């Protein structure tokens, strides 16, 4: 096992979180966008509420543009992609140039999508690159500890997002099981007590989503 700093441990975890956040929010945006086309113009308001982000948008068009592509909107998908990039760019020697290149390509694809007349098609290229990034991370990074740190970030983010969207308990339980199996292998600093509590919460018939979000956010690193 190579040596790895606290800073890089943190960056790998957040790289996993932000790539997952971008991927998942694009998928969610796609389904909401479809609803907004001809079913409900104001669907985006419910989306903002579920994601706990301020509704600063004037219309569905304004939402579609700013939420996806505005770097001035700190909650936008693009802002989150740039956070993934900011973490990835300082991890070249940990994850390798080939793996890193897919984050770079996702940024280029996002820039193209922003000026495209068919942004959903453009966003698909962003998700294609993120999937390729995860595939490369799995296949190309020798150090299992590094792979596991990225995956822990990804799973934490997924549980967090699913809880915010009040997804069915079984869906969340599956991710919690995967996280439980992964987190010890990552050798990251985390709270076993909080992990046990997350597992307890997801087993309840009526999952307390707010408590779950609070717990999973405190699972790893300084916030635990």
């Amino acid at each position: 096992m190579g040596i790895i700093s606290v800073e890089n441990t943190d960056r790998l975890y957040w790289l996993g979180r932000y790539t997952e956040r971008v991927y998942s929010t694009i998928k969610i945006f796609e389904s909401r966008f479809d609803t907004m086309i001809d079913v409900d113009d104001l669907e985006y308001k419910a989306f903002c509420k579920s994601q706990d982000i301020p509704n600063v948008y004037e219309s569905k068009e304004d939402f579609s543009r700013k939420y996806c592509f505005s770097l001035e909107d700190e909650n936008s998908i693009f802002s989150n992609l740039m956070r993934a990039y900011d973490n990835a760019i300082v991890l070249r020697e940990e994850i390798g140039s080939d793996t890193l290149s897919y984050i770079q390509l996702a940024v280029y694809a996002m820039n193209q999508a922003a000026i495209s007349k068919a942004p959903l098609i453009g966003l698909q290229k962003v998700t294609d690159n993120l999937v390729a990034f995860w595939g490369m991370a799995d296949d190309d990074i020798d150090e299992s500890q590094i792979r596991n740190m990225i995956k822990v970030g990804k799973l934490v983010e997924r549980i967090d997002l699913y809880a915010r969207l009040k997804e069915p308990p079984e869906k969340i339980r599956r991710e919690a099981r995967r996280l439980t199996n992964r987190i010890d292998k990552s050798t990251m600093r985390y709270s076993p007590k909080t992990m046990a509590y997350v597992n307890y919460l997801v087993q309840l018939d009526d999952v307390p989503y707010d408590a779950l979000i609070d717990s999973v956010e405190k699972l790893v690193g300084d916030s635990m």
Partner: protein
Amino acid sequence: MVTYTDIFSKKERVEDMELYAGAGDVNEQLARYGVKFGIYKNNEFKEQLFPFDVIPRVIDSKEFDYLEKGLKQRVVALNHFIDDIYGDKRIVKDGVVPEEFIYAGSGYLPQCEGIKPPKGIYSHISGIDLVQGKDGNWYILEDNLRIPSGASYPMIARKISRRSAPDLFTGKHIEDNRNYADLLRRTMDHVNVGGHTVILTPGRYNAAYFEHSYLAEKTGAHLVSGSELIVENDHLYFIDYSGRKEKVGAVYRRISDEYLDPMNFNRESVIGIPHIFDIYRKGNVALINAPGNGVADDKGIYYFVPKMISYYLGEEPILSNAPTYLPYYEEDMKYVMEHFDDLVLKDVAEAGGYGVVFGSKMTMEEKARFKEMLQKEPRRFIAQEVIDFLDIDIMEKGQLLPRKADLRAFVLMADEPMVWKSGLTRFSRNPDSFIVNSSQGGGFKDTWVLSQ
């Protein structure tokens, strides 16, 4: 004089251009790998792609043998000079180099007096800038012995070009330049005093951050920031995520001397490591390159390098300097004043293409002002004859256009001096400019050294 067009036949050249045209955009691939450099404009950090031109500079094997000998000779002499300056100072006592050029320069660090670095090596990685004149002769423009950058660019460009235009490389007998990481690793390992080897970066907002991270990846060294290293019990340690301390034996530092150690140099540095210089002094860590090397790559000292070669090695310099004048000497001042329009004037304190002015391009008023400044501060400037560079073709929108270009050759010092069989060829994108620096909009080319 040897150029791409001399070496390869017309038929080969046409075929090569077709191969490049059909190979897709290498620049697109370089963008994919984030081959960028950072610049600050209006206090804002921006990352820019470093434009790559597909037509290589080609150096045949005989010519490179000559360059290799000259470069090794020069770097060995410069190492002797640094050792001497921070030691016995024989070259000053013998009147070969005036002391004003040593102690008044910002590159001289009194803190380095009496220090012998591991294996006696000061300039482990030297970047020597050369140009080829239209007369076919190579001239040294400057020596970079502090933290020369640029090797990573031709390294990755070669990798991508071989992938995008493989037939271009078939049967041409080109030395493989992708071994730079091996040479660098050998150089770092040679002086490592025991422990890990790390590359110390100021961080991602440094202009050369791509290079730091790429070299770390390719050499297998750990890329670290100052906050991840600590000096304890006279040794340097890397603190890992679990708080464990791992001993470090060699630091390829990509931060300048003044920011290296706030206890010994600039007290306001937040990117350095307190007391690293103290343990370096005790021989407990190797610093690559050694602090204090600036004393030997000052533009004023450049004038004396041929004299150093004769003084330390008893040999005639193989490679020539560009004809240079030191206004410090009365005779040279007279010449500079009389031939002002024919000369390029360089501020010895500046780098990166800044502080360079051409006499012929100044207005009458600017000339008068500059001459006055020169009289007041003769030590601050050197003057050089403007070398008529050999133009090198670049390809722009399918057309071949001549541009000025230089070559940064890399000499690495391990158990023996090694010259990397390639180099960074930088060119000016502006047809009227001699300034090739990336920070001023220049581009780069691969440098092919032929093996036969």
